[in-house]
């Protein structure tokens, strides 16, 4: 089974990065502060995470900072797994 951070990275690359624009995204690449993912699109990313991992992410924790890198997203998801 793929590691969570690879799953999230793959989703981000497929959905938000244009293959032609030369952007390389890694686990620590800023997503929100760099403008790769805007605040409105963050909602669809949140829906993806909730669906994939069968969790509920509270709105007050789904902040730009928490969603800013794949690593920080994984930390947020792991915090809510098993709750």
């Amino acid at each position, binding site marked *: 089974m793929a590691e969570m951070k690879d799953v999230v990275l793959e989703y981000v690359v497929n959905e938000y990065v*244009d293959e032609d624009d030369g952007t390389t995204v890694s686990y620590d690449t800023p997503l929100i*502060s760099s403008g790769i993912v805007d605040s*409105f*699109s963050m*909602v*669809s990313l949140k829906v993806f995470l909730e669906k994939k991992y069968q969790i509920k992410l509270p709105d007050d924790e789904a902040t*730009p900072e928490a969603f800013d890198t794949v690593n920080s997203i994984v930390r947020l998801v792991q915090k809510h797994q098993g709750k």
Partner: protein
Amino acid sequence: MSNIGSYEQRLRNFDWGIAKDVLGWREGELLNIGAICSDRVCAQGKGEKLALVWEGFGDKRHTYTFNDLKAYSNGFAKFLADQGLKPGDRVCIFMDRIPSLYFSFLGVLKMGGIAQPLFSAFGDESLEVRLASAGTRAILTTQKHVKKVRAIHDKLPALEKIIVVEGDASKLKEGELFFDVESAPRVERFDAFRSGPETPSVLHYTSGTTGQPKGAQHVHSSIWGQVLTMSWVLDVRDDDVYWCTADPGWVTGTSYGIIGPWALGITQCVLDSGFTAARWYKFIQDNRITVWYSAPTAIRSLMREGTDIVKQFDLTSLRHLASVGEPLNAEAVVWSEQAYGLPFLDTFWQTETGSIMISNYPGMKVKPGSMGKPFPGITATVLDLKTHEPITEPGRVGLIAFRPGWPSMFRAYWGRPETYRGKFVGASENATPDELRTNPNLWYVSGDRSSIDAEGYYWFVGRDDDVINTGGHLVGPFEVESALIEHDAVAEAAAVGKPDPVNMEVVKAFVTLNPGVAASDDLTLDIMNFIRKRLSPLAMPQEIAFVEKLPKTRSGKILRRYLRALEWGEDPGDLSTLEND
């Protein structure tokens, strides 16, 4: 002392000619916005003054003087003219907030073209609708966004030129042009088009309840409204460092993110980066920004981050804050005073009005939550919802309306004279656009509702139609619904605004599914991403409700107002036309 001084005194002694005095304008000067914002400032001896401080993500930072602004806008004007573009041609500017966006906007105007800026997050369908409507002849874009243009090019016969201004020239397709103005030879002289007061200048698309977006067309004399409000409302002075956070894909980003500040020779800053509170505060601190014009959505996002983070930055340079896009709630006004020592002053205007119409002013008592009072020279009222007569009793809600004739008023909806006429109460069926914009007996109806209190302050209530105001941007439900039913799973759709603590409203979709399709989380996500890519992230439903059927009138029209009322916990009103089961 503020530029406006006493609001009451300005009301008594008002004349739009004051705008010319503010600019030091002499009769006979060239009235071309592109030239006024660059060549004219240089001719005043400010050529070496900083015009633009630009920062991108990471450590990217570039600065440009007014001499640079002149040369690079000339560069674009010459390039476009050399390509055979003519005065009156619509030239779309479709890029992120990179410096070339600002240079090319002025360049298009200098060559006599009509600048059509579009939000770079638009998907190919949103782009296609707007380019087709305008009959756009050329588009300036970047390698990052050109793919969306390629996807629709064969459906746009008028679109002759695709010009890529940033990126890798080797990746262009056949027929596309590459022009990097900063690498090209500087063009120190270009004879700007001899535009007149009524020469078309800018075409901004805005959404309505029905039909596709409409192009609000402005003219070069709009500058008088933009300059005077820039001076009296935003209170800029020669030594200010100004930041307008709006994207020029929307009207605030051109009227007050390009035209207003640069006509007055003001240094302005642009941040082309994603939003985080720390990044914004650092930007203000590092650039010693003094005047900050932002939006309620951004302010509420900053509120969520609290005041501790504010203390980590030196924001003492700030001296004046203003807000636009949607009503600024009282809590945000009070909070900003606590956080920054200054209240955000709310301003109200629209794509169609071209400049600020109702506002709070420096020195005038602020009533938190109020839109303020009409700008001097603007005759405003609220009209009875049914009779369309002006309401005289304080506190009663009506339609915000203005007497036509202010300088920056839009002159047409591109190619839609009937729709334009429909915005004026009291207009005869055969009134020409010129008659509409000059007839002092008509009312231009804004589409927003408010009341006026006993002291003359306006209090916003909401839209008078189904248009969704999300984060200060208008989203047309028809456009969203049209895109939704293009999804394979969707049979019928309705899009309405639902309350949101940060964006005021966000899009919520109600959909019925085609036979054999089952609702699921996967489908929700698929539809969301479908709309995000086709239209824009703003138009993407933040919530999708799968329903058996949509509420309709007996004639089959979807009753959006019923769905909206349910979302807002409001009375849906008369439901006598609702179709029975």
